[in-house]
């Protein structure tokens, strides 16, 4: 391990951190704009041209707000919980290839922090640790709504994580590798090689589980405003709450990347066109997260668990079995 490798990795980490922190901010802007347009409103318009600087205003507000730690909370855990959410979201990004490798001045750059051979396992595992943010934050908050939110997040987590793993098994059986680069190269032949055509059921299941994973609207139960205020975030203010927010939006981007790479061919053969396609696919998935928020109602926690355990999990198991049988013969 030479110094150049370490420097390159650190540069990559910083770039990814900066880009996705900024994207999380832009994500809130896009969300507000898209939701507004779908509801025949204009959304933020006053700060900067077309409200573009609203992100800056929100950032300044979050950074300069008083950091309130209420009296009866479990202080160390209360303070560390938002960090867990944001940190795990960004740690998960380490194994995601964001762009095909390219050459700058004779130096080949791999835009992935660590191409580990258990890439997707690592990504899902670290994203799963992100559960501890809402769970610990909610339990430490000394607030009944937060406590309900923590209980919900744990119950929902167990439900959707089963679907995530089982639905991914079938494509992984076909590819024979857990590395996201290998999965991408498996589909490098073009649109007909995409795994979504051979594993449509797994794709739908993983997509549904991604909504639960990121806590987006049909399954926005952990912080459902009209039921439990802001759930685990109720007692948080200022930048601690902002960390939850950044974590949530970064998670949305990363899970969109994972879906695009595993099922929709990723960056394809590694040309610039393929890379742009990857961005477009990710943009579509991100847009879909916002789109469903405008269109669909939330389900109850028991409905989500019914869906996960009684419907999606049997389908996922069947999918794995059928895939195995087909691969055997």
């Amino acid at each position, binding site marked *: 391990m030479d110094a150049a490798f370490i420097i390159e990795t650190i540069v990559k980490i910083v770039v990814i951190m900066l880009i996705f922190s900024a994207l999380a901010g832009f994500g809130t802007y896009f969300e507000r704009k*898209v939701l507004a*347009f*779908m*509801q*025949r*409103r*204009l959304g933020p*318009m006053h700060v900067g041209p077309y409200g573009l600087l609203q992100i800056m205003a929100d950032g300044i507000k979050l950074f300069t707000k008083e950091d309130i730690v209420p009296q009866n909370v479990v202080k160390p855990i209360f303070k560390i919980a938002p960090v867990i959410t944001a940190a795990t979201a960004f740690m998960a990004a380490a194994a995601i290839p964001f762009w095909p490798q390219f050459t700058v001045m004779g130096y080949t750059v791999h835009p992935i922090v660590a191409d580990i051979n258990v890439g997707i396992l690592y990504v899902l595992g670290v994203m799963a640790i992100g559960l501890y943010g809402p769970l610990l934050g909610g339990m430490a908050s000394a607030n009944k709504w937060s406590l309900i939110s923590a209980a919900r997040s744990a119950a929902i987590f167990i439900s959707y994580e089963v679907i995530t793993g089982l639905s991914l098994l079938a494509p992984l059986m076909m590819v024979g590798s857990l590395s996201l680069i290998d999965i991408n190269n498996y589909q490098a032949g073009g649109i007909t090689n995409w795994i979504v055509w051979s594993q449509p059921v797994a794709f739908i299941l993983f997509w549904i589980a991604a909504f639960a994973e990121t806590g987006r609207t049909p399954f926005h139960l952990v912080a459902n405003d009209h039921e439990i205020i802001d759930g685990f975030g109720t007692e948080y203010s200022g930048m601690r709450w902002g960390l939850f927010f950044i974590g949530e939006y970064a998670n949305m981007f990363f899970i969109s990347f994972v879906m695009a790479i595993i099922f929709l061919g990723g960056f394809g053969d590694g040309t610039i066109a393929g890379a742009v396609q990857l961005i477009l696919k990710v943009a579509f998935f991100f847009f879909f997260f916002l*789109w*469903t928020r*405008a*269109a*669909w109602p939330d389900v109850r926690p028991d409905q989500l668990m019914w869906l996960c355990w009684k*419907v999606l999990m049997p389908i996922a198991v069947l999918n794995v079995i059928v895939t195995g049988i087909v691969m055997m013969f």
Partner: protein
Amino acid sequence: MHHEEPFKDRNVSEQSAYYFVDIEAYPENGWDKFKQVARRTFSGELFVGLWVVLREMIKFDIHTVQYPKEKLPIGPRYRAVHKLLRLWESGYERCIGCGLCEKICISDCIRMDTRIDENSRKEVTEYSINLGRCIFCGYCAEVCPELAIVHGPRFENASEQRAHFVIKDDMLTPLDLLKAGEQAEYPGFGAVIPGSDASVKKTPLAY
């Protein structure tokens, strides 16, 4: 669903507009439940919802009024901050200082001072309305015999303190605006209704 209300027979009957909402029977056994789930899953209703919001986004029929830059038109009878009008021909103040508005004001927010001027006319020296108390009921405009105090369209009256006042200089139409024909006659409370001459009845002699 649009339907005409049958005004003649309002009793609940077969001919009336009342009807039972069609609620499908609840599933009774597991197979029925399964069929319901399957039907709802594959009916594509979720995509109808997605299409509805996407259609609105594509149509881009935005209903937002960007308020400080754009304002909705308000009705001519809107009762906002008062105005004192002038006579069209002479430019003299319409107010004759009778004090009826001060008297009728139910929130007691109008204050006026008068004096007899050199021509033995009553002249209004002070006229102020406490907008912190005013409830914009319109009685002052209604009671005014001269159509002198009326309600204007100025509804933005935020101020630094709760009790803020409009004084005579704020309300009175400036002379240059009057000469430019900018003074608008008020069609609201107390104004003569168009065509009201026709509805005037002669006083019966039997009284």
